[in-house]
């Protein structure tokens, strides 16, 4: 491959060219530096953007970085084996942008691994990619090493598993069995598992876990005729014969359902840990990077961090397929001779100027006021138990809102979870909300080797803090914190800082700025719309404040 010239940029694309593909995205990497990552779902307002080409994501990136499509030297796609995607990608780029750069296919699992390594600050790490399926594989184990441009190794794959051993499909299929959606409801099962009794349900007919490996019996996870739609159940009569009828969506959750959720989670964790153990035995390395949809399982991630032979864990925050676009771009950059750099923050999406915000406020015609002390006003509102939304700067890449498109609330308030659920999120009561915590205070509040900046790892809340912040402590005493540092996001840090000053609690509830079923808000008008279409009390958007008078 030719070396990059100084203006040329690698663009990674998750193209989602079939309706079963999701999370289409466009990522831009210049000389190893990740400039921006744009998710199509935010622009088309359709969660996961199933079957949507990343047209608006590409446009957003080109515009944000002042690029022309001809400045792109290579388009990397995280798919190696679906050969028709190369000409199809070329055709749609020509159709929408008038030109197609060279298309560079990268193995799907390798793309995930790259996204879990190069963005981390590890010099060397074990890497695991685990998802439902991609390029006919569901799991890949490998090693990443910096400074290997000469040898050309970068990321080395040691082992892969096929689709019939997919931990992602295992979890997804049983999620469907429990009456949740197979299109992304796995986190509900994870939340529910804390209410179940360990060992109450035996899943050994489906999965057997040994010390360093696992074996799935795929017979339980498939059916004839094969489902072709994400709404169809994957499982067939064998699973029903073994475990009885599936739970109907919407029917009350029984203890047996909870125990089943616990068994899914426990077996998943054990299988994952056994895999990590094997990889550690192969490599002796004590740091690990994870990506692929399974890496969203923040509870399993906590268990990894607890392993004695693990020193540190990095989870790619955009670990589902939007992140594979990033990984493919990083691989292409490496293959072009430029080692990708660490990514400090995931505020990698679009931003909107104060003028654009003001224009949207004027279009809507709502009342607003200029606010020159947002941090204090926001903290004060939180202290008053108002549920607020903050909108600032570039949007987050990946499923978590990290303070730029966030709904915030007071974790001291015992009822806050119910209030947020009843007025805004309308979601299941068993699911916890996550905290954002001043970085320097994390050690006091959590028992953990490290606290993620990206809400990717669950941590135990220390005993004496649990009763002080009931709004964020799950039934099992855990929470999924975000460590907030001033250098990463000053305006968000200042809100938590002011709240700490007012309440002596350096923690706020942080949940994504959206209503159920919708993607995180993208534009200022999306934010205004969602503010009024929900029970939010205040909106801080740039330097403007919108508030509702509650009688």
């Amino acid at each position, binding site marked *: 491959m030719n070396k990059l010239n100084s203006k040329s940029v690698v663009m990674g694309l998750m193209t989602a060219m079939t309706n079963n593909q999701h999370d289409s995205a466009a990522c831009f990497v210049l000389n190893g530096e990740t400039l921006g990552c744009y998710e199509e779902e935010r622009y088309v307002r359709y969660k996961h953007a199933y079957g949507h080409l990343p047209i608006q994501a590409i446009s957003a990136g080109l515009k944000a970085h002042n690029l022309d499509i001809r400045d792109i030297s290579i388009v990397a796609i995280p798919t190696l084996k679906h050969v028709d995607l190369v000409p199809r990608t070329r055709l749609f780029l020509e159709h929408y942008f008038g030109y197609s750069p060279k298309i560079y296919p990268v193995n799907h699992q390798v793309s995930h691994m790259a996204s879990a390594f190069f963005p981390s600050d590890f010099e060397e790490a074990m890497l695991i990619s685990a998802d439902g399926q991609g390029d006919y594989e569901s799991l890949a184990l490998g090693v990443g090493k910096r400074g290997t441009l000469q040898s050309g190794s970068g990321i080395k794959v040691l082992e892969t598993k096929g689709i019939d051993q997919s931990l992602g499909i295992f979890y997804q299929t049983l999620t469907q069995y429990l009456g949740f959606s197979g299109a992304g409801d796995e986190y509900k099962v994870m939340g529910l598992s804390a209410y179940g009794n360990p060992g109450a349900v035996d899943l050994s007919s489906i999965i057997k876990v040994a010390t360093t490996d696992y074996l799935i019996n795929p017979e339980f996870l498939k059916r004839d005729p094969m*489902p072709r739609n994400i709404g169809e159940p994957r499982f067939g009569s064998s699973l029903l014969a073994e475990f009885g009828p599936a739970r*109907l969506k919407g029917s009350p959750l029984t203890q047996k359902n909870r125990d089943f959720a616990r068994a899914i989670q426990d077996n998943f964790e054990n299988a994952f840990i056994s895999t990590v153990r094997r990889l550690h035995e192969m490599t002796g390395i004590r740091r690990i990077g994870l990506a692929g949809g399974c890496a969203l399982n923040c509870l399993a991630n906590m268990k990894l961090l607890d392993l004695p032979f693990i020193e540190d864990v990095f989870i790619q925050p955009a670990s589902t397929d939007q992140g594979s676009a990033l990984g493919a771009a990083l691989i292409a950059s490496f293959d072009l001779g430029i080692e990708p750099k660490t990514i400090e923050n995931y505020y990698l999406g679009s931003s909107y100027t104060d003028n654009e915000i003001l224009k949207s406020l004027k279009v809507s015609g709502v009342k607003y006021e200029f606010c020159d002390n947002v941090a204090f006003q926001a903290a004060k509102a939180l202290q008053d138990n108002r549920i607020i939304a903050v909108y600032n700067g570039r949007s987050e890449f990946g499923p978590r809102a990290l303070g730029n498109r966030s709904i915030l609330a007071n974790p001291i308030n015992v009822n806050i979870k119910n209030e947020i659920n009843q007025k805004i999120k309308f979601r299941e009561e068993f699911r916890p909300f996550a905290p954002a915590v001043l970085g320097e205070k994390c050690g006091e509040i959590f028992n953990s080797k490290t606290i993620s900046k990206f809400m990717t790892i669950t941590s135990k809340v220390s005993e004496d803090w649990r009763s002080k912040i009931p709004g964020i402590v799950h039934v099992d005493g855990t929470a999924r914190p975000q460590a907030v540092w001033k250098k990463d996001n000053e305006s968000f840090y200042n809100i938590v800082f002011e709240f700490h000053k007012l309440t002596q609690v350096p923690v706020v509830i942080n949940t994504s700025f959206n209503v159920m079923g919708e993607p995180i808000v993208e534009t200022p008008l999306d934010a205004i719309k969602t503010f*009024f279409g929900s029970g939010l009390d205040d909106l801080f958007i740039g330097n403007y404040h919108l508030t*509702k008078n509650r009688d």
Partner: protein
Amino acid sequence: MNILGIHGGVTINQHDAGAALIVDGKLICVVEEERLIRIKTATGALPIESIAACLRESGLTMQDIDVVVLAGETYEDIIPRTAEWLKHHFGTSPRIEKINHHTAHIASAFYHSGLDSAMCISVDAYGDGLSGAIAIGSLQTGINILETIPANNSLGVFYSTMTSFLGFRPGEDEYKVMGLAPYGNPSIDLSFFCKPVPEGFFCDPKFFRSRKSATSLEPYYSKLLLDQLGNPRRKGDPISEIFKDIAASTQLTLETSLVSLVTKAFKMTNEKALCLAGGVALNCSANRLLYNLPFVNELFVQPASSDRGLPLGCALFMAFICGEKIEPIPHVFYGPSQSPKEIESAISISGVSATKVENPAIEAAKRIATGEIVGWFQGRSEFGPRALGHRSILANPTIANMKDQINAKVKFREEFRPFAPSVLEEDSYDMFEIKNPSPYMTVAYNVKNPWNTIMKSTTHVNNTGRVQTVDSATDPHFYNLINEVKSFTGCPAVLNTSFNIKGQPIVEKPLEAISTFYGTGMDSLFIGNYLLTKNKTKI
């Protein structure tokens, strides 16, 4: 007998999922999945929420359903797969019957029309390996398919391919090509691609790409079309004269081909009433020509003529087969009911202030007359793509720049596209070249002098309007509103556009109406008996 018609999700590229429920011959509920899952066209989705809504509306459970009917007789595994997901989502699966895609389209038009007999035509891109069908419909003998058109000869695909070539989204943006057509001259000869022939029409499949695995966002045209017509227009580029001419030529080709097909159907059936369905029947400009054909004395176009209408067609077809007496379907307001409590709850959740008004029609009319853009959310939602006064954004059509105002503040759409008027039925005959009521906005009629200059914001450049005629018996509430507007402005019409933001489905629930109201530059919102305004909002 309880009959559930469904559509969607059988293949991942299927769009317009939905469900319709007929109980003892009476239509109870029809709703599109997109309204409930809030994803336009709901491509690839199973109609789970719409089925649930139909069941809720009727108080029935899946166990009470006697038969489920779907369109797609050529899909071999469709019945066992459907049975499995019905069981998964609803606990049980009734008997399932599959019928032909075009039979379902034709049934949706004929049994909805109220006609005793008619020539019936279905024309779309493709379904069950066919792009269309001609049938004779009779309330005595049902639907008799006389001829089918194979999928590789497809008027729908021709138009979608040209839509794609013109830089719009095929399968969705065809109406933009239709709206653009009057700005150009039909000077480009497209007969190499598609033309009328004595047997109907002929479209050469080598000018479009195989749609087998592709998504609707990928280009539809083949390289051979570019050899003929040059470079396609890129999305977002200005629309130069040549592209306007291509749009005009595309529309003309469609119209002459359709006229040829209808002429043939008339010769086969000798029926003077015409029922139309299938996605191509959304082309209200072409429908005007068909309406004006000398041998056509009545035209009924299924309001949900694209695949949105399939669930209804399936259920109607089965109701007739089973000997049910099909009750008249006088309107399209068959969405899930909203109780006043739901409206109050939505207002309370949002925390905005709302005023209860005695007579929303009068208050709204006043505001419309003075130039406000008004959200109008009343009763059960419409099925089909058109808002017809239950989920509508309304404005005064006599204000010259109203179109631009709505585009700039609410719809953010292309300026060349017209808005449609809703008009008192009794006045419509003076205002349009129209002989019968047209309650569903399915035909664009010529506007008569001087109304074409009075209704500046709803008269298209070619002097037509896609009018909805409103009568006092079917929808007294909306009728009153227009009547009040008439008393203020002297013009018995409102501009009526769907209550949604570009790219999103029409609002279904009160909270969606409130959020869309604030997410756009609408001035006031009437939701049931409540009025929301922006300057009165206590914020």
